[in-house]
């Protein structure tokens, strides 16, 4: 009998746990309703000020890319606070709410639905292309303008969604920069390693398509599964193929592992990482093995004009320095602000056209869109790790 009572107790406790969980998650739901009311007010009188413009954020705040996800959210928040302090946009204050995609396609779809059900006015974010793409169609269907701050797979361009703009240069721009670096180093035999997901495979595919045209030879294309510990067999295969230059297309968390094992496995040629690895964490994680490694990177705030001021403010607010994509996110909000002001309202058509025609000089470079809603001008740079820090290289 006692066993049955014990079982009953466990069941009651479990139910209690659920009830508790529901009570917690109930709060944001009511907040969402509040948002709806405000949105309702806005639609009745768009010219009147004092309302709230809600911006949904899709970012990986947990998982392997949590570092970037949280950095994104902080950068958005910083821009929003600045704008609100200066009187908002058309008299309205901006407000942010975040949904976590965990850099996972399945979770991104759920996160997108949650964002849509909260009825924001605009959506920003998108770090991992693999997780961003499934969400984009949903935002399109819901009639929400989406500014993709970080994800830069050309697959996003190929979706050809009329309200989706990419604030970051796509991988094709990175490979142009890479090709310039290869010429300056005088190497011809290149090996790429990707991780089999949308973003990293896309970058590797662009290398395979563009580099041979520019006179370079791709001697090996290898795949490292995400989070796989062992790449020693890949290293041996790359050495055997006679590669002089290895281009790591993946993210920094696995990148340090690849770089260390390349060096431990006796590879002595050049190593270069794609923009997924352009993080100071790469340097600490690699230690001495990281010296001399190149990175094709999105604009680096430390090297940008007005960057020092930005870093100081960011560090003051959050205790750590901004990440590689921070300025892209910061500029995203300002692009949105300028577009709303040009449009004079939050009207879908008007704002969309304003973004299409925008010309905004941000910390991340010139933001101006081509017909296909990619950046018109590449924003990539080349950096090299020297004495434990990134240094700008002119290829």
């Amino acid at each position, binding site marked *: 009998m006692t066993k049955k009572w014990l079982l009953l107790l466990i069941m009651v406790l479990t139910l209690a746990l659920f009830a508790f969980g529901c009570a917690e998650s109930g709060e944001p739901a009511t907040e969402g309703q509040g948002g709806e009311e405000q949105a309702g007010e806005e639609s009745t009188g768009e010219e009147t000020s004092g309302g709230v413009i809600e911006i949904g954020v899709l970012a990986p705040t*947990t*998982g*392997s890319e*949590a*570092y970037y996800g949280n950095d994104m959210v902080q950068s958005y928040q910083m821009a929003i606070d600045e704008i609100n302090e200066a009187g908002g946009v058309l008299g309205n204050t901006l407000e942010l709410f975040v949904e976590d995609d*965990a850099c996972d396609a399945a979770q991104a779809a759920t996160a997108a639905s949650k964002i849509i059900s909260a009825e924001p006015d605009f959506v920003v974010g998108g770090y991992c292309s693999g997780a961003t793409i499934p969400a984009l169609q949903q935002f399109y269907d819901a009639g929400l303008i989406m500014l993709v701050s970080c994800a830069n797979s050309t697959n996003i361009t190929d979706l050809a969604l009329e309200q989706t703009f990419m604030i970051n240069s796509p991988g094709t721009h990175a490979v142009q920069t890479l090709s310039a670096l290869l010429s300056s180093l005088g190497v011809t035999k290149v090996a790429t390693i990707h991780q*089999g997901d949308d973003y990293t495979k896309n970058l590797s595919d662009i290398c395979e398509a563009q580099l041979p045209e520019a006179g370079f030879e791709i001697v*090996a*294309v*290898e*795949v*490292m*599964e995400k*989070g*796989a*510990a*062992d790449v*020693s*067999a*890949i*290293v*041996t*295969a790359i*050495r*055997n193929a*006679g590669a002089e230059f290895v281009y790591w297309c993946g993210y920094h*968390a*696995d990148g*340090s*592992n690849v770089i*260390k*094992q390349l060096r*431990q*496995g*006796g590879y002595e040629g050049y190593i270069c990482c794609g923009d997924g690895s352009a993080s100071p*964490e790469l340097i*600490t*994680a690699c*230690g001495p093995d990281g010296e001399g490694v190149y990175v094709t990177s999105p604009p680096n705030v430390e090297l940008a004009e007005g960057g020092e001021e930005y870093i100081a403010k960011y560090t003051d607010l959050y205790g750590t320095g901004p990440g590689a994509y921070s300025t892209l996110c910061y500029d995203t909000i300002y692009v949105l602000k300028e577009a709303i002001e040009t449009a004079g309202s939050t009207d879908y058509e008007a704002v969309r056209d304003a973004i299409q025609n925008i010309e905004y000089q941000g910390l991340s470079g010139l933001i101006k869109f081509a017909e296909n809603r990619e950046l018109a001008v590449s924003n990539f740079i080349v950096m090299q790790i020297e004495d434990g820090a990134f240094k700008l290289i002119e290829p």
Partner: protein
Amino acid sequence: MLSAGEVILQQLMNGLILGSFYALIALGYSMVYGIIKLLNFAHGDIYMTGAFVGFFVFGILAGTVGSSWGGVILAMLAAMCVCGLLGFLIQLLAYRPLFDAPRLSLLITAIGVSLILYNTVMIITNGEYMFFQHSIPAGGLTFGNVTITWVQLVLLAITAVLMLVLSWFIGTTIWGKAMRAISLDKPTCRLMGINVNKIIGLTFFIGSALAAVAGVMSCVYYGSLHYFMGYMMGIKAFTAAVIGGIGSIPGAMLGGLLLGLLEAAGTQALGSSWKDVFAFSLLIIMLIFKPTGLLGKTEIERM
């Protein structure tokens, strides 16, 4: 460019190292399956937990003992104890009440335990990667263009020693005999006065401790750890246990090493995108001809 001989030597070494990780984890799968016929899917997460325990202990010890082999060995011992106890507790709280339930209930419980461990570590670490920074001197033995580092040699030695000790333990000690007896016939063992539950607990302790060793070894060798590291490793190790013949201790060791070598060979021969296809195709073919695994025995179900 490497010569053909150098490539073979290097890939052999790569395969052996990877194989020893698989083997150490596969042992836990095999021992537990042998004794209670449970596929303990939480085992990969015990490996992951072991890595994190090792990481945190190492962080504490690095100041006093140093961050070279001394600290690593102590961290390994600590991780073995913690994970051994964890394995024992999981067995006590989650599995023991279900020993007489249908086997599927036990299997689902194991998946549940796996999720609990996985998510707990994710919350504790905020889902971030951790980097294990040691000061073990680089270098090693050089053969032409191929270098075998001291770390690799020490890891192989640790694996070999553990396997020898385990074989001795299972083969000659009274507890080892009890384990083997229980895997043959549990009710009779109980009638013979063997404390079956205690021996099952011991099996979980040893299996989990071995997984913890693999976890700490992977920290040292690969340098980074994350909460989902146990997932793929668990599946591969489970595969290794099946190849060797699940329930068989030497089979788990052999299966692990074989899978590691096959993956290295697959990467070399067909490229990394095909390595799993290559390794697993060979395994399917092998299992068609020897369904019980390399060293597994055909089980006779008595009616």
